[in-house]
C-alpha cells in the first residue's frame, strides 16, 4: 500500500497555492495542527479560505489567528467570529469590521454537518439550528412535520490540516481522546488531507481494523512531529483563558 509519510512539514505543504481553501482541525489545543500551520506560515501562501471552529486564535504557537494577522486570509467559515468580550477584540475582528476579511459565522453543528455533506455527496440538508435568527434571514426555510428548518449547503475544501495520535504508513489514523473533534470529518471532506502525528507512525498491519478512527483512504500525507523545540506540541498552557 502506498506510503504517505513525509519527512518534513515544509515539504508537506510546499505545493499549497495562493487561494487554497483549508479546513483546520482542532477544538481548543487538542487536535490542533500547529506544525502544519507553522509550515504554512513559513511557506507564504496567501488569499486563503479557512474553515475552522474559530479563526481568531493565537493561543498556540502557530494557529489560524496568526495567518489572519499576517493578512493572508480572505475568508473564514467558523462558529466564532468574535471573542466573548469586546475587551479581547482581535485583529480578526478588526479585519472583519473593516471589511478587509470576510467571516461567515454559523452554528457549530451546521459547520460540521456542511463538511460532512461535502464529504458524503449530500447536495444540501435541512437543520433547525439558526431558524428565526439573523443568520437565516436570506436562507430558504421549509416546514417539515410542523417544525421550521433552514436549508444548508456543503462546505468543500482543497486541503484539511489535522492532528492525530497514531498513523500507519498508509494513513489509517487513531486519535487520542478529544483530539478527535472535527478532524475525522475534515479528513473525509477535503480533497487532500495532511496529518501531523503526535505518537508513532507504524507499519501497515499494526492497527486493529476495528479501531481505525479515520481510514487511510481519506488521508494523503502524514508527518511525525519532531521533538521540541523544532516540533510544536500542544500543552495545557496553550489554552485561552
Amino acid at each position: 500500500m502506498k506510503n504517505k509519510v513525509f519527512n518534513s512539514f515544509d515539504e508537506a505543504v510546499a505545493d499549497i497555492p495562493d487561494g487554497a481553501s483549508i479546513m483546520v482541525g482542532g477544538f481548543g489545543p487538542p487536535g490542533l495542527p500547529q506544525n502544519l500551520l507553522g509550515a504554512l506560515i513559513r511557506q507564504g501562501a496567501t488569499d486563503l479560505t479557512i474553515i475552522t471552529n474559530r479563526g481568531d486564535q493565537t493561543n498556540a504557537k502557530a494557529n489560524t489567528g496568526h495567518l489572519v494577522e499576517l493578512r493572508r486570509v480572505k475568508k473564514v467559515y467558523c462558529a466564532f467570529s468574535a471573542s466573548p468580550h469586546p475587551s479581547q477584540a482581535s485583529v480578526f475582528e478588526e479585519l472583519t469590521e473593516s471589511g478587509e476579511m470576510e467571516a461567515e459565522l454559523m452554528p457549530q453543528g451546521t459547520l460540521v454537518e456542511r463538511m460532512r455533506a461535502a464529504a458524503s455527496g449530500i447536495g444540501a440538508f435541512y437543520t433547525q439550528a439558526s431558524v428565526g435568527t439573523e443568520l437565516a434571514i436570506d436562507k430558504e426555510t421549509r416546514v417539515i412535520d410542523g417544525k421550521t428548518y433552514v436549508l444548508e449547503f456543503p462546505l468543500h475544501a482543497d486541503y484539511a490540516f489535522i492532528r492525530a495520535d497514531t498513523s500507519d504508513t498508509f494513513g489509517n489514523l487513531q486519535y487520542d481522546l478529544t483530539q478527535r473533534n472535527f478532524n475525522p470529518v475534515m479528513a473525509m471532506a477535503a480533497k487532500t488531507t495532511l496529518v501531523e502525528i503526535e505518537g508513532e507512525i507504524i507499519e501497515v498491519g499494526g492497527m486493529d481494523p476495528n479501531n481505525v478512527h479515520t481510514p487511510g483512504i481519506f488521508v494523503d500525507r502524514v508527518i511525525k512531529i519532531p521533538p521540541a523545540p523544532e516540533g510544536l506540541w500542544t500543552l495545557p498552557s496553550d489554552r485561552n483563558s
Partner: protein
Amino acid sequence: MTTADKKPLDRQTMCSRLAMEFEDGWIANLGAGMPTLCSNYDFKDKDIIYQSENGLIGYGPLAKEGEEHPNLVNAGVQYVTLRPGSAIVNHADSFTVIRGGYVNVTVLGSYEVAENGDFANWKTSGRKGGGIGGAMDLAVGAQRVWIAMEHVTRDGKPRLLKRCALPVTAVGVVQRVVTDLGLFDVTPEGFLMREIAPGYTPEEVQAVTEARLIISPDLKPLQVT
C-alpha cells in the same frame, strides 16, 4: 429583615438550584462559564452524564492543575477528567447527540431572555461578529433549555425582557431561567416567578425586570437542598 440581609444569590447557588432538578441518568450539556458550576452540586446517588460539543460523553470533574491531559478538554476548553464509561465520538456524531434530542437538559448563559422564550447569547450590540459555538444547535435540539444569568446588566439594565433587543440565538425555546434574584419558568402567559432570592420582595424584582412577572401563588424563597 433589614436591607443588610438582602443579597443577590451567588453564582453557585443559582446553578445549584437548576442542578437540583436534574434527574437520575440525564445527559446534560453545560455552557461555558457560569453554567459549568451546575456540576458542583451534590447529586448524591443521582448519576448525571455530561456531554460536550467536541465529542466527549461522560466526563468527570476538572483536572487538577499539573494533572491535565493535553488531549482532554470540554467545550469550554477546560481540562477535565474521564469517568468510567465515558466515550469519544467525532464532531458530526456529537451534534447527532445534540440536534437529535439526546440531551435532556442544556444550561446556557445569556445576555437576554424574553417572555416568549427567545434568548440572545451570541452577539453583543455594536459588533459585527459573534460567538455561536454549539448554542444554536443545543437550543433547538436539547429537550430542555435552561438559562443561568445575572438579573440585570452591569449598567443595571433588565435582562428579562418582553422581546429580545439583541439578535436572538433561538426562538421560543427557553423553559426556565435562574438569576441572582429568583427562579422563573417561561409560560404561555410570560415569566412565572416561582422562587425569589431571600430578603427580596416581588415588587423589588419587578422593578428591575422589563417583562411583567407573574408571581406564583406558591412563591417561595429560593433555596438549595
